[in-house]
């Protein structure tokens, strides 16, 4: 009877310990799916007459689901209100919502939808997905880093404005506004 009690106690202790060790990484590998809009940014840099200009979108809706333990299952969707653009100067901001640029009246939203996420080692990852602007879609690859301590996703990628007909007619001259636009994002997320 005594030995049996001892055996049961040992068993319980071993089980308890293994449950504890299993539970520890599970707590770390939380799924980050609560985007903090106020702390997040979607910005861009473009070159005008050889001069780097910074712009950003003030209104966007980002939803994501990312577990660093299972990065390949991660998903992200970002919907951008293109009329909320700040192109770096009042004059440019007023201009770019117009028909030859974003045509915000006809295409109020730009969006990114991920199709897959790859781990690149360390805290580096890569999201593949479809970027749709002005009704035109392109596949893009967005490398990013993720900091599990702060829940910050930071990344950037380069698009060609010509692929999306951003800047048509007289603005199609890449000698004035360069074709390459660097898109930068900082998404701040929390887990439940």
């Amino acid at each position, binding site marked *: 009877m005594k030995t049996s009690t001892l055996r049961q106690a040992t068993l319980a202790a071993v089980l308890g310990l293994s449950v504890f060790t299993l539970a520890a990484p599970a707590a770390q590998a939380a799924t980050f799916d609560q985007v903090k809009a106020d702390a997040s940014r979607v910005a861009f840099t473009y070159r005008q*007459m*050889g001069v780097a*200009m910074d712009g950003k979108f003030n209104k966007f809706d980002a939803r994501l689901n990312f577990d660093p333990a299972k990065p390949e299952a991660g998903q992200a969707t970002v919907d951008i209100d293109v009329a909320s653009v700040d192109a*770096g*100067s009042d004059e440019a901001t007023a201009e770019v919502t117009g028909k030859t640029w974003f045509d915000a009246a006809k295409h109020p939203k730009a969006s990114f939808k991920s199709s897959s996420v790859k781990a690149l080692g360390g805290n580096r990852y890569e999201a593949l997905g479809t970027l749709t602007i002005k009704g035109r879609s392109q596949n893009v690859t967005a490398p990013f880093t993720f900091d599990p301590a702060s829940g910050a996703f930071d990344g950037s990628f380069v698009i060609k404005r010509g692929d999306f007909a951003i800047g048509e007619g*007289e603005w199609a001259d890449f000698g*004035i506004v360069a074709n390459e636009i660097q898109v930068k994002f900082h998404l701040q997320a929390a887990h439940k």
Partner: protein
Amino acid sequence: MNSLAPHGPARYTRTAISLHWLIALGIIGIFSLGLYMTSLSLSPTKLKLYSWHKWAGITVFVLALARLAWRLGHRPPELPASMPALMQLAANSAHVVLYILMFAVPLSGWLMSSAKGFQTVWFGVLPLPDLVSKNAELGDLLATTHAWLNWLLAATVVGHACAALKHHFIDRDDVLTRMLPGAKA
């Protein structure tokens, strides 16, 4: 050191003459361009003209530096002794104002551009540092400053040119010709 008489040289040096007229052409051209470009609505042409205006303005700034350095090392011809003291004072003051504005006008434009969020990249190649960071209020203040300094410069240049013509046609002295290229001393 050929004609360094007690009254100084009779003519400006070839370098001083070249810098004077290059800067004069630059100021007239850039001022006119500035008036024109600010009247345009946004277009690729407007962006081009703004860039050219800035590039040319910085070029004048550099030429003005060279000119000041040259001026400090080379004594200019003196004003005619027949000029009343008050007129000499007026002429010398106007020259000091012109020197100050040759620096202040491009400098205010450079600062304004930075404050408005546009770095100045000389000829699209050489980025000049942003001495102030982007700030809408400061940008508007510097825009007003740049405009007023330009009107002051325009008024002083017109006065300077009228004075030179008065010397030439009314006083019939050599004040204009000693700054003209080609003429013999």
